[in-house]
């Protein structure tokens, strides 16, 4: 039991809890921002500015009865929210959120601030997010209800369609950075152009960044692409039949997926933990700030834009986003070949 | 110590399970799944032997097998849908006539 091992273990524990906390925080932020956009006050009773509201919500959900429709497939119905939440947590495990630290000389070798370093990290994230589809599809099918089934089908079709653009946008960054490791990709963005503009990939890949953000919204099933749970048509989509903690798990998975998508965007396009002013051991503060900004953007978009129609979504994904992503990838590859 | 033989035996067992599935099941979808098991057994052999010979060719063939499997699944499932429309069943015994 070396100090390094204990520190790594504590780091994993910390990341896990931070993810749960971020979901709680996102619930609060969503309600607060939504309220301000709609010229209301929002939650302000539980805790300072309603900050403890999510915990009250969780407590309420815990007290509720766990219901299961009689016609549902018991095993798959139980396992679906677990798959969703597990995939959401796992995807974050390969994201680096800071440089290395020895905890002020406490450790014998520097501990990188991430759960695990994989040399194909970008692909791992891609693989795990594609596993997240199963939670939703299984929930939709096993509930044995028409709303759930339609929600599940829509969601899987949507996720598969937008995964292509998502993957191609990532591929362009991989071509630029010449690595599949997120840590290396972030470190490749060190430095400045003309001493002012940071060498972030967003300035080389503006189109790619937009494609990534759009596909990311569709991947996480958020408005304006929230068809799987379009409440006016489908009640609540794939989680119509869920209650209590299994419902909370889907909620948790959705918010953690948003955090993961934002964290990947931060690492790939916004220079990860790199930033001016702060010393390098406080880099994770920059990371947090950038992720928060992106999350705010997601919430802002949800409460500002109306929902698309389903055929519009499919048309947009296949006829506009995918060709744009292909052109972006080819142009990037050609430029890299040309400049060298 | 795990040797190449271990991987080859495992791959053989998986392949046999796949063939047994094709023989035993009377459901077109499960038969297609059994074919996927066989393809995967072969993939495992390729990767293991590639590692043994210290070459990447094993992994590249695996990559091609996956592509072929994807194409096969797309066409196979389209056929399943077309057949199901005509006969309302997935039993292969219902599709013995060449014309209907």
């Amino acid at each position: 039991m070396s100090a390094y091992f204990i520190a790594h273990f504590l780091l994993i524990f910390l990341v896990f809890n931070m993810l749960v906390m971020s979901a709680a925080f996102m619930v609060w932020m969503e309600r607060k921002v939504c309220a301000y956009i709609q010229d209301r006050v929002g939650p302000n009773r539980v805790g300072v500015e309603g900050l403890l509201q999510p915990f009250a919500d969780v407590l309420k959900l815990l007290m509720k009865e766990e219901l299961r429709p009689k016609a549902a497939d018991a095993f798959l119905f139980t396992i679906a929210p677990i798959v969703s939440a597990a995939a959401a947590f796992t995807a974050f495990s390969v994201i680096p959120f800071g440089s290395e630290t020895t905890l002020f000389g406490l450790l014998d070798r520097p501990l990188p601030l991430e759960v695990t370093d994989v040399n194909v990290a970008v692909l791992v994230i891609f693989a795990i997010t594609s596993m997240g589809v199963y939670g939703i599809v299984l929930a939709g099918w096993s509930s044995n209800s028409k709303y759930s089934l339609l929600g599940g089908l829509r969601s899987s079709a949507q996720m598969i369609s937008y995964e292509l653009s998502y993957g191609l946008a990532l591929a362009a960054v991989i071509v630029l950075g010449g690595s599949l490791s997120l840590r290396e990709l972030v470190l490749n963005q060190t430095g400045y152009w003309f001493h002012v503009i940071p060498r972030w990939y967003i300035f080389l890949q503006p189109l790619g960044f937009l494609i990534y953000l759009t596909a990311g919204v569709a991947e996480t099933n958020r408005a304006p692409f929230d068809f799987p749970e379009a409440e006016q048509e489908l009640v609540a989509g794939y989680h119509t039949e869920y209650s209590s903690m299994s419902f909370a798990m889907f909620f948790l998975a959705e918010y953690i997926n948003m955090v993961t998508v934002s964290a990947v965007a931060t690492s790939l396009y916004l220079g990860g933990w790199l930033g001016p002013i702060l010393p390098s051991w406080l880099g994770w503060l920059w990371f947090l700030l950038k992720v928060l900004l992106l999350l705010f953007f997601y919430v802002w978009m949800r409460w500002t834009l109306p929902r698309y129609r389903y055929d519009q979504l499919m048309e947009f994904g296949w006829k506009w986003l995918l060709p744009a992503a292909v052109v972006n990838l080819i142009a990037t590859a050609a430029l890299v070949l040309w400049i060298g | 110590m795990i040797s190449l033989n271990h991987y080859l035996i495992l791959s053989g067992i998986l392949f046999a399970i796949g063939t047994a599935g094709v023989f035993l099941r009377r459901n077109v979808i499960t038969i297609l799944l059994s074919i996927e098991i066989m393809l995967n057994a072969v993939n495992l052999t390729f990767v293991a032997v590639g590692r043994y010979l210290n070459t990447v060719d094993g992994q590249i063939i695996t990559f091609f097998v996956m592509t072929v499997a994807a194409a096969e699944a797309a066409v196979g499932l389209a056929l399943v849908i077309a057949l199901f429309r005509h006969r309302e069943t997935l039993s292969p015994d219902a599709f013995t006539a060449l014309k209907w």
Partner: protein
Amino acid sequence: MFEFIAFYAFAAIAIIASLLVIGQRNPMYSVILLIVSFGALAGLYVLLDAPFTAVTQIIIYAGAIMVLFLFVVMLLNVPREEAIASRLGARARRTGAVLSLVFTLEIVWALTRLSVMPVSSGGGGSIGSVARIGTALFTTHAFAFEATSLLILVAMVGAVVLARKEHH
């Protein structure tokens, strides 16, 4: 030691899951179990120093092909295989089962007679390097790579033609 335990754990998962896939009347469960089996195989690929293949296994097989199967099972809504007597008859099917068992024993027997070959022969360069795979794929195997793109196009057109509703 770790390799030993991991190999047997993944092998056991792969075999049991595959057996359950074919010993199942509900295609929905078959699909899910096959995904489990693919996951175990991905683990074996990692043991074989092929992380790229492991990840593509998950992305392509588990993430794309199996979703397609799941889609068809869900859309056709045929939860169970009919227990009707097959045209082949029970005896022929029993023979088939026995034959595949014989086949298994044969393979195992033949392979155990081989001399033990160490899985890693050492030598320079890691075969797990994505750059090495990419270089080989786009130089030595460029023709095969282009051919698969044609294959996918054909499959795509074929699937659309076969599955579309006929208008009389």
